[in-house]
């Protein structure tokens, strides 16, 4: 890209650039022992994206193996390890911490006009627990790997001969605590550090969703922790807790597991919805439509999501009555989700819509989440669930929700806050190109899987009947396109860090407080508490072509 010369309209103000959180101190130690939420967020972002690379490689190996029925590149046991590691890494290391711990960590305190989270040291501890979890996952791979699927169903997980089961369970336990501490930190911060003038209903919607997420993290994750601990003990000492041969109950494990793991789906998707609720109004330059409904729907989703776990067990042998209740409750979650989609659409109406890269991801999110959510309706209906459960329909459905929605929103968030985090602008054109690859690649990968599922192809199949080969090959080609999109993205984002144009404080015209501090922000974010206004009122922001950013008309340009 271009280098900056003094005559460019984008040249920074003369003199030394102001000190920011990246340049305030130097050296590895200043990062490893930092308690600055922004630096911790950057470390999270880098680590999570590294884990994403690893999980992505496993995904490509899985898709490559499925190019033909039977053996393509590896044997069945190896394939089983690949999809297990892909799932475990993507869920526990990438999606659950992704948006809250990386992006939320960065913007949450700034959105409150605060200097940091309520407990900065706890925040660093969360990060190192994440690292411990990641290290244990690698240890698990080295010690003979795992082939249980990310769900670790008993008695398979207590009897498989692969040596990585206990390390990976311990790793997930660590990640659980990391998640609990982050949630705790966010809740206290939102309660205690809101500035004067920012009532609950003047908070940016991202904070509502992070708050709702944090509640779920605190209430649900301990159940996972205890369950995994019991599983470790059972595997090591052969106690009869879940294992039927020893007098345990394997369905009890499933109940415990899904009591956490269903809310976990919303731990992944709620922050994503929060990000979308920030991006859509800014790039429409229009107040978010139905603020109260969106805020309340986050809380409603968090609450309902605790009472639907049984929908993962409709064919497990749980009683008909219980299944019926869970089906009914499952549908309750769909209402607040639908409300949000319609509110985002209404926000677009009459706006001034700019199709910059973050907005492309937000619009893609609305489509893909729409499809992911609508296909969930099939799975909530008991009779249809019986046919679709455990097939590729499930695989397609949850990839639309977790990758098409949670991850796409995270990509949108990364592009949205990138100028704030790095102080640099990436190339819009390359951003759009990568987006096209990601969007087309994603749909080509996962849409055919709906068809495989309705026609009866079960998931986790190494060998499949030959009539499914065409659909599988489409899916594999799609995954390669996705990979190309991600490689392009990695290149232009890295390039921007070293050679991108310096970003103005407010490149998109956002009204939340993070756009009021410099890009990148100084270590303490604000010198004096910023004035608090409506986070979605863009009327006093005007575009300044000189800085290529928005400035407040009420105050002189920074």
């Amino acid at each position, binding site marked *: 890209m271009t280098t900056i010369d003094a005559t460019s309209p984008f040249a920074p103000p003369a003199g030394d650039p102001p000190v920011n959180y990246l340049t305030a101190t130097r050296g590895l130690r200043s990062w490893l022992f930092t308690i600055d939420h922004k630096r911790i967020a950057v470390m999270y972002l880098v680590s999570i994206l590294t884990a994403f690379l690893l999980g992505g490689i496993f995904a490509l190996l899985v898709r490559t193996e499925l190019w033909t029925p039977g053996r393509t590149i590896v044997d*069945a046991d190896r394939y*089983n390890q690949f999809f297990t590691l892909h799932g475990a890494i993507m869920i526990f290391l990438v999606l659950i911490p992704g948006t809250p711990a990386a992006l939320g960590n960065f913007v949450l305190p700034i959105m409150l006009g605060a200097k940091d989270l309520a407990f900065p040291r706890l925040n660093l501890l969360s990060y190192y627990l994440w690292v411990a979890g990641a290290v244990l996952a690698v240890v698990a791979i080295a010690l003979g790997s795992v082939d249980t699927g990310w769900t670790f*169903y008993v*008695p*398979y997980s207590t*009897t498989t001969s692969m040596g990585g089961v206990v390390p990976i369970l311990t790793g997930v336990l660590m990640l659980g605590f990391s998640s609990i501490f982050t949630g705790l930190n966010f809740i206290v911060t939102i309660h205690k550090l809101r500035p004067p003038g920012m009532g609950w209903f003047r908070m940016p919607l991202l904070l509502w969703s992070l708050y709702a997420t944090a509640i779920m993290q605190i209430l649900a994750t301990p159940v996972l922790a205890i369950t995994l601990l019991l599983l470790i003990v059972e595997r090591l000492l052969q106690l009869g807790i879940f294992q039927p*041969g020893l007098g345990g109950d*394997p369905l009890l494990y499933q109940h415990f597991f899904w009591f956490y793991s269903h809310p976990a789906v919303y731990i992944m998707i709620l922050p994503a919805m929060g990000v979308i609720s920030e991006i859509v109004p800014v790039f*429409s*330059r*229009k*107040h978010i*439509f*139905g603020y109260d*409904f969106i805020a309340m729907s986050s809380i409603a989703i968090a609450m309902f999501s605790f009472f639907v776990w049984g929908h993962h067990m409709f*064919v497990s*042998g749980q009683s*008909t009555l219980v*299944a*019926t209740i869970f*089906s009914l409750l499952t*549908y309750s979650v*769909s*209402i607040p989700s*639908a409300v949000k989609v319609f509110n985002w*659409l*209404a926000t*677009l*109406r*009459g*706006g*001034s*819509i700019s*199709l910059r890269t973050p907005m492309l991801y937000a619009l893609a999110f*609305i*489509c893909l989440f*729409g499809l992911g959510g*609508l296909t969930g*309706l*099939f799975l*909530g*209906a*008991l*009779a*249809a669930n*019986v*046919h679709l459960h*455990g097939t590729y329909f499930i695989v397609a459905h949850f990839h639309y929700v977790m990758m098409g929605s949670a991850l796409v929103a995270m990509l949108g968030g990364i592009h949205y806050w990138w100028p704030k985090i790095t102080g640099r602008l990436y190339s819009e054109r390359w951003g759009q190109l990568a987006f096209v690859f990601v969007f087309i690649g994603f749909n080509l990968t996962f849409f055919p899987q709906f068809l495989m599922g*309705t*026609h*009866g192809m*079960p998931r*986790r*199949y*190494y*060998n499949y*009947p030959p*009539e499914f080969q065409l659909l599988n090959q489409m899916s594999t080609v799609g995954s390669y396109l996705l990979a190309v999109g991600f490689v392009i993205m990695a290149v232009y984002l890295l390039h921007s860090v070293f050679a991108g144009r310096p970003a103005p404080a407010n490149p998109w015209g956002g009204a939340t407080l993070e756009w009021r501090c410099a890009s990148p922000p100084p270590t303490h974010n604000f010198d004096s508490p910023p004035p608090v206004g409506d986070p*979605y009122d863009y009327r006093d922001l*005007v575009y300044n072509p000189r800085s290529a950013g928005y400035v407040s008309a009420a105050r002189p340009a920074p």
Partner: protein
Amino acid sequence: MNALLPNLLAQATSLPSIAPEGGSAWMPPQASGHAAEVDAVFYFIYWVSVFFFVLIVALMVYFVLRYRRRVEGELPRLHSSHSLALEVTWTIIPLILVIVMFYVGFRGFMDLANPPGQAMDIYVTGQKWLWTFKYPNGHDDTELHVPIDTPVRLILASNDVIHSFYIPAFRIKKDAVPGRYNKMWFRPTRTGEYLALCSEFCGTQHSDMRARVVVHEPGLYEKWLTDVSDPFKTHTPAEVGALLVSRRCSGCHTVDGRAHVGPTFRGIFGHEVGIKGQPSVIVDENYIRESILTPSAKIVAGFENVMPTFKGQLKDQEITAIIEYLKTLSKSPEERSP
């Protein structure tokens, strides 16, 4: 007839298609009483979803085109930020729709859950990586055979980990959980061959844990059951031998003259065969018997020592039947009996 456990390889090569002809765009053919009802639920939700998806995308595309920002900093056209009436509408309409969805799904599920009183019971056991079916007369088999239009109740159990018994064409599925019995039922409505699968991950050969499902014309099921329960009563030894070979040996041996993992069976009886490291032999009754019980004693030249022993798995009478069958496989396919 426990000894009829088939060879998995043999099974995989000759299994029916998972989705034979006759399905709809999204669903495999309907071969049980549940299928039509499940498909009705599916297509109801499908069309509601298509409607909403098209609505969402159309509105989005329309708004983006219509309200596109042409110069940076352009102001929005409208300023609406809430409308209670609208928001209540798009809360209530989906609410009504999902209640209907819940109800139709529930009704279909009740039918799936409640078998009629006089159903025929078949016990199904899952074990890595094979389904076994125990018929009312005590016969064990690796295929599920049922008479058309008769309610059948399957009682599922597992000997090791959790499996899930799934017949796509019947739209039924239930987990086989160790330590408990789960039940499911169906009424087959279309004769033909279908596939039963395992849909709960159970390890290395999870995806090969399939079984053939055969729906018989009226009357033929009983005939099949008596035949298979005691084939020697109704068949010549050579016919039983043909059945045994097709089930247990055809993964490695052909009867058409082509070598596979092992040599073909066509025309070997009475002919000379080269043995690795030993003088060649004439194939006779004792040689075949030895090959089945201690395959490693004499390895046929040009082949690997991979044949498993069938000691304890095939009864004497069955080995004799196989020998009789091999005798009938003369050189040319035309002269071939059963």
